[in-house]
């Protein structure tokens, strides 16, 4: 876009009021004699140095950049790890329950009902858990599942342990723990 530059008639040693109509001349080589009438204030404001605006823009850009960096840093610091202390606590609940069931030889029975009764005794009220016991045993064709149903739209944690029964059967125990809604 072509920018117009004006020459103010200041050389005439006149004083102008803001809003007063004055005649200005185009400072263009090909149109030196053209002129137009404008209001004094509008013309003057357009004509002054725009350094301050540039500095403000410069500052705004720098601040936007630095603030963006700060926001991104805060985001990554807070989202640095998806595993929270609450998840770890849930995992520990599952791990402790499996350890106690194993130490008390409850899993050795392969009795679905007994395992479920003991599981309910140990499980804190605000948690739900599914326990899957796999191994080379006849009950349930080597697979026992005790506990609640895995929720579809809820985060859960899971872990695995191995156990050995007194009869020498190796057990693979998988547990899923989630917070009750």
């Amino acid at each position, binding site marked *: 876009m072509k920018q117009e530059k004006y020459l103010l008639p200041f050389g005439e040693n006149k004083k102008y009021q803001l809003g007063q109509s004055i005649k200005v001349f185009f400072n263009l080589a090909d149109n030196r004699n053209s002129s137009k009438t404008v209001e004094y204030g509008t013309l*003057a404001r357009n004509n002054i*140095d725009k350094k301050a605006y540039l500095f*403000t823009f410069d500052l705004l850009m720098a601040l936007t950049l630095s603030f963006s960096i700060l926001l991104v840093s805060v985001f990554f610091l807070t989202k640095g790890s998806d595993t929270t202390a609450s998840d770890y606590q849930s995992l520990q609940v599952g791990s402790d329950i499996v350890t106690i069931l194993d130490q008390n030889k409850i899993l050795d029975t392969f009795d679905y009902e007994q395992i479920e009764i003991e599981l309910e*005794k140990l499980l804190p009220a605000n948690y739900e858990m599914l326990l899957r016991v796999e191994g080379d045993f006849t009950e349930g064709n080597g697979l026992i599942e005790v506990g609640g149903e895995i929720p579809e739209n809820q985060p859960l944690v899971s872990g695995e342990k191995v156990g050995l029964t007194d009869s020498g059967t190796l057990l693979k125990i998988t547990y899923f723990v989630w917070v009750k809604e």
Partner: protein
Amino acid sequence: MNTKKGQLASMDLLFALFGFILVMIFVISMWALYMNRLNTSIENRDLELSALQTVDTLLRSTGTPINWEINPNTSEVLGLSSPDGSIDNEKLSAFLKLSYNSTATKLKIKRFKFNFSIYNLNGTILNSTGLFTNGTKQVVSVDRLVIIKNETRKISFTLWRK
């Protein structure tokens, strides 16, 4: 002579200053807000991690030296586990008899306050050491299930800032 040039430049400066100050106020307040959130988050994580690690150390390790319960004051690391993984009753008794400051120093949690309690599965408190919380904002409690003398017990370890 143009006498208005100076006034117009001053107006421009005033506008720029006004914009600058507005932006600075916004930026400083946002900065303070985010720094506050960040510090709170860091403090919470520190508290949570300290609680989880302390309980893990207590319940999974035998302590250093391994027979520290004979002379608890010379112990370097406190641990309540026996070599088979269950809770050693003698170590637990020695731990409960230690003074609050000594326990906090050995667990390396002197910058916090703590409470260690043992419950049965019905929720009745059986034993406890440490202080009790009183309206503190940041509190982290870690619950674990253990076997003590062939009985299942719940250990609750609570940690909060001084």
